[in-house]
C-alpha cells in the first residue's frame, strides 16, 4: 500500500507532508507532556521494530494466488495509545522510505497519513470506548479492517487527484479495494488474536495510558469527509430525477418558464455570486476532482450546521 513518488503530483505530496508533519509535532508534544521520555522511548522502539519485522511475514490470500502482509497500525494504537502509535508507525515508514525506497520521500507524507494517521487518529477513537467497555472482538476486527480499507481508499484518491495514472478513479478504487479487502480481513483476524494474546501479559498498559473515554468526533468527521469525497466522485453527470422530469415535461426547454419569475432570477444571480464551486465543480473546469472537493466542502458545511444546531438545542434545553 506504499505510494511511490512517481505516482504523485507535487501539491498532493506537499499537502500530505504538511498534514503528517503537523500531526507528528502534535503527537510528540502530547507524549512529552504526558509520559516519561526515558521510559517510553525504548518501548516505542521495540514496538516499531516489532511491526517492521512482522511486515516481512507474508501470508497467502486464498483464491487469489497473491500474498499480503500485516500492516499493524491499529494493533499499535491498541497497544500504545494513539499518539505513540502514530509516531511509531511514522518511524517504521521513514525507515522503509529511506532504506528500501519503499514509498518515496515525497510520498512519505501520504504514506504516514494512510498507514499511521488513519488507524491512530481516525479509526482508533471510533472503537476505543467499545473495546474498553466490552473487549469486543468484532470491534477490534472492524477497527483493523477499516484502517486498512480506508488507507487503500486514500491511496486511490491521492493517485487520482495527482492525475499521473490515467486509470479512471472508479476502476482504480475497485482494483485497490479488490486487493486490500482480503488483506484487511486477515489484518483484522491477526489483530484480534494478537491483541487478546498480548493482553494477557499486560505489557501494553505501560504505554497506553489513555484510560478515559475518547471523543470520537474527529474520527466521525474524517470518515464522513472521505466518504463524501469518494461518493461524490461517483456522482452521475446526468440531471437528478426532478430536473430530468421537468426537462421532459417542458420538452427540451432549459427550465420551466413558470419558475423563472423575478424572484427566481434574483435567487439565481445571488447563487452565482456566492457559489464558489458552481454545479459541484471548479469554475470553468469540468474536472471530476472539483466534484470531490465540492463533496468535502458540502460535508464540512453540513457538519458545521449539524453541530451548530446541536449546540443551539443544548443551550435552549439548559435555559
Amino acid at each position, binding site marked *: 500500500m506504499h505510494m*511511490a513518488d512517481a505516482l504523485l503530483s507535487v501539491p498532493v505530496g506537499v499537502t500530505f507532508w504538511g498534514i503528517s508533519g503537523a500531526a507528528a509535532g502534535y503527537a510528540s508534544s502530547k507524549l512529552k507532556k504526558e509520559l516519561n521520555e526515558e521510559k517510553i522511548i525504548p*518501548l516505542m522502539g521495540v514496538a516499531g*521494530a516489532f511491526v517492521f519485522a512482522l511486515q*516481512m511475514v507474508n501470508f497467502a490470500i486464498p483464491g487469489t494466488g497473491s500474498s499480503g502482509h500485516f500492516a499493524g497500525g491499529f494493533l499499535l494504537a491498541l497497544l500504545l495509545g494513539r499518539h505513540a502509535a502514530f509516531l*511509531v508507525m511514522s518511524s517504521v515508514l521513514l525507515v522503509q522510505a529511506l532504506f528500501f525506497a519503499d514509498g518515496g520521500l515525497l510520498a512519505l507524507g501520504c504514506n504516514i497519513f494512510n498507514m499511521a494517521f488513519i488507524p491512530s487518529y481516525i479509526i482508533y477513537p471510533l472503537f476505543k470506548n467499545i473495546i474498553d467497555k466490552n473487549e469486543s472482538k468484532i470491534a477490534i476486527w472492524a477497527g483493523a479492517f477499516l484502517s486498512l480499507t480506508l488507507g487503500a481508499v486514500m491511496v486511490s484518491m491521492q493517485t487520482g487527484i495527482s492525475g499521473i*495514472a490515467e486509470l479512471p478513479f472508479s476502476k482504480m478504487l475497485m482494483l485497490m479495494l479488490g486487493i486490500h479487502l482480503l488483506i484487511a480481513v486477515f489484518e483484522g483476524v491477526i489483530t484480534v488474536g494478537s491483541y487478546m494474546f498480548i493482553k494477557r501479559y499486560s505489557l501494553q498498559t505501560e504505554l497506553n495510558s489513555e484510560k478515559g473515554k475518547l471523543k470520537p468526533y474527529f474520527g466521525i468527521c474524517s470518515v464522513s469527509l472521505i466518504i463524501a469525497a469518494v461518493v461524490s466522485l461517483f456522482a452521475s453527470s446526468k440531471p437528478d430525477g426532478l430536473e430530468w422530469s421537468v426537462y421532459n415535461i417542458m420538452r427540451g426547454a432549459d427550465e420551466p418558464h413558470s419558475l423563472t419569475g423575478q424572484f427566481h432570477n434574483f435567487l439565481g444571480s445571488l447563487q452565482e455570486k456566492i457559489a464558489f464551486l458552481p454545479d459541484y465543480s471548479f469554475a470553468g473546469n469540468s474536472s471530476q476532482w472539483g466534484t470531490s472537493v465540492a463533496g468535502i466542502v458540502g460535508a464540512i458545511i453540513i457538519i458545521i450546521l449539524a453541530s451548530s444546531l446541536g449546540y443551539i438545542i443544548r443551550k435552549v434545553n439548559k435555559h
Partner: protein
Amino acid sequence: MKTAQDRLQYLTAFEELAESNFPLNRVSPVVKIIIAAIFIVLTISVKKYDIFHALLLTSFTCFLVAIAPVKVTSILKMLLYLSPFVLMLVIFNPVYDKSVIRIAGYQVYGGYVSAFTTVLKFINTATVSVLIVSSTKFIHIASSLRFLRMPKFLIIQFMVMYRFIFIFLYDIIQSIQAINSRGLQSTTFSWHNMKAIVSAFFVKSVLRGEEVYNAMLSRGFDIRNFKFDNKINISDIFFCLCSLLYVFIVRFI
C-alpha cells in the same frame, strides 16, 4: 527483498557501504538530503508528456550512481522489486489516454509517453534516495533529519527502533527457519497460527528490547542530552550549489 533474510542482508550491506570511501560518502549528510529532496520535487514536477526534461534529469541520477558506493546491479534489483505498484497503474495509461502528441516530428500516443515519463520519474526518485542513504551512516541520517527540524522525540525513537530492527529480523529469520524445517508440504504460514506467532514475537521483543536498551545506556546513550552532530564544509556547500545549479538548469531549459 521479500524475505526477512533479504532485508537483514540488505541493511547490513548498507552499514558497510556507508563506511566505504567513495566521493558521495564524503559529502555532508545534510547537503545530500537537501539535494535529494529538491531533486525529487523537481523530478515529480515534470509534466507527464515532457519526456525531454525527464531524460535530462536522469543524467543527474547517472552522475550520482557513478560517485556512490552501490553497484548498478543492486540498484536494478531494488527497482525491479519496487516497480510492480507503479507499473500496475501506468500500464493503463496507453489504454485510457489516446491523445496524440508530437515528439521530434513524430506523432505518438500520449498514453505511451506519459507511462514512460512516469517510469523514468520512478527510477530517478527511488534511485537517488537509496544512493543518498547508502552513502551515509545511520547516525548521520538521524542527525540530518534533526537539522531539518524533525521532532527530537521522533528522531530518537527512530534511532532506537533502527537498532532493534536488526535483532528482531534475526529472530524472525530463526522462527521462519524453524517453521519451515518442521513443515511437511506447506510453503506458506497457516494464518490460524499467525496470532500465536505474532504475539510470541511481541512478548519476546519487549523482553529483548529492555536488555538491549540497558546495554545502550551502559555505553553512555543519554536521551535528554543527546547531541546531534552536523558539520558542513565549504566543499559541501560547493557540491550542493553545483548540483542544484545543474538540476535547475536541466529542469528549466
